[in-house]
């Protein structure tokens, strides 16, 4: 069952230049879709368009069977969440205060317990009452991930979520995401420049370049059809073919 559909989305910020060009994808329940591409490929623009931060020039987004529009956006976003290494949380507030604010924004009922539970999932219990500015960049990213899980989202959009995390925490984060997907049916769109990580975490991958989708499918299928040993080799082959 498709929980998210992106149909023929294009976005042009200036005449003749497309940040996204006829992008289509479907995300199944419980699936992790890795979005790959060089800088400027349109990965982040795609995520922002799905979140309704950018309106497409053409095409549409549908989540939970509801077409995304100004009228339906709040209802859709209640069931989604987002984390990015490019976005932060207020540093003056403590992790717990930040979580309490977002718990209220997402209408969580037992806020205090849920905040402590999600902070605990990322090993932030001991830091929860210290100002967030005392956290390292890796701890801040863990806090952003905890925020992203506060509403137990059905769709999670992650823009380079493991940037700044040490390898051990990054591995644990990927494991946690995989178990949340398999146990709770959470679906994830995940961008990263780390191709090894993508290979480990993604059920399917989507390659983008210049705002276009070059290819998408199951990693094993794509590797087979391109005769590549791993995603890194596939990545360079895909870019080479596109040239």
């Amino acid at each position, binding site marked *: 069952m498709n929980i998210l559909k992106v149909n023929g989305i294009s976005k042009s910020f200036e005449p003749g230049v497309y940040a996204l060009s006829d992008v289509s994808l479907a995300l199944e329940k419980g699936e992790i879709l890795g979005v790959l591409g060089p800088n400027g490929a349109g990965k982040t623009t795609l995520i922002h368009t799905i979140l309704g931060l950018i309106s497409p020039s053409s095409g549409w987004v549908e989540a939970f069977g509801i077409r995304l529009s100004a009228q339906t956006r709040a209802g859709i976003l209640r069931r989604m969440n987002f984390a*990015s290494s490019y976005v*932060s949380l*207020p540093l003056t507030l*403590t992790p717990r205060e930040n979580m309490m604010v*977002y718990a209220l*924004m997402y209408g969580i009922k037992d806020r205090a317990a849920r905040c402590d539970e999600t902070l605990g999932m990322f090993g932030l219990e001991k830091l929860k009452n210290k100002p967030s500015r005392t956290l390292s960049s890796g701890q801040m990213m863990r806090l952003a991930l905890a925020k992203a899980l506060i509403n137990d989202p059905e769709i999670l959009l992650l823009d380079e979520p493991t940037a700044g995390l040490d390898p051990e925490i990054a591995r644990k984060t990927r494991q946690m995401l995989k178990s949340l997907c398999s146990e709770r049916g959470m679906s994830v769109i995940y961008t990263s420049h780390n191709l090894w990580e993508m290979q480990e975490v993604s059920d399917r991958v989507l390659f983008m370049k210049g705002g276009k989708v070059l290819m998408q499918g199951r990693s094993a299928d794509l590797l087979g059809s391109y005769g590549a040993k791993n995603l890194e080799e596939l990545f360079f082959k895909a870019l080479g073919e596109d040239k």
Partner: protein
Amino acid sequence: MKASHVAAVALRQLYLYKRSMARLMEVVYWPTMDLLLWGFLTVYLRRTSGQNMPKFVSYFIGALILWDVLFRAEQGISVSFLEDMWSRNLINVFVTPVTMAEYLLGLIVISFIKVAAAFVLLSVLGWALYSFSILKLGASLLPLVLNLTAMGWAIGIFTTALILRYGLEAEILAWALGFVFLPFSAVFYPVSVLPGFLRAVAAFIPASHAFEGMRAVISGARFPARELLDATALNAVYLALSLLFFRRIYRVVIDRGIIPKIGE
């Protein structure tokens, strides 16, 4: 409109004021400094000018306190919005189910709390240091304060729309735009002092009617019904226009993909 969403926006700002000395100073320190500096200068001027201006201290201290109401109301919205930009938190907020209307209302709530805190502080100081009781304004006090708050909100919403559109390049407006109205609002002097063409400008500024009304009450003349009515009518128009402007800018911002650019 969900009360919990509005409360969340306000709570984020309240947490900030709890923890940030700099933000607390904005509500306590600067208004107090203004009152001390200009208040004592006023006392000195009255003493040296003899009995020519018996209500001078009252006019001036009253004007200082009420101008601060307008200024805090404006900053309560625009600077609170800037807080989310400075902390790179804007995208996180804008991808929650909180609508723009709820977000703006949350900023209005926090603005109201800031106005109330600064107003109480300045009123107590005005009474303690200059024997000026703001309660002198009697029944007109609440409508005067509400009108100045409403004008502050209209400027704050307008400023916030410009910051949303142009990013941090426009942040100076959060401090500067309110002051544009200061010379024409007849805060410390009557409108009659202004030259003819500026009197025409003042007629379109709600604050000028409010401050004329304040002076009318302090001089013991009358309840400033006409001034309050004029100020209220103008504020209703400006608030509506500022909200329409904000909505228009928000659509432009979504269309041009500006939020991710200013929010990261």
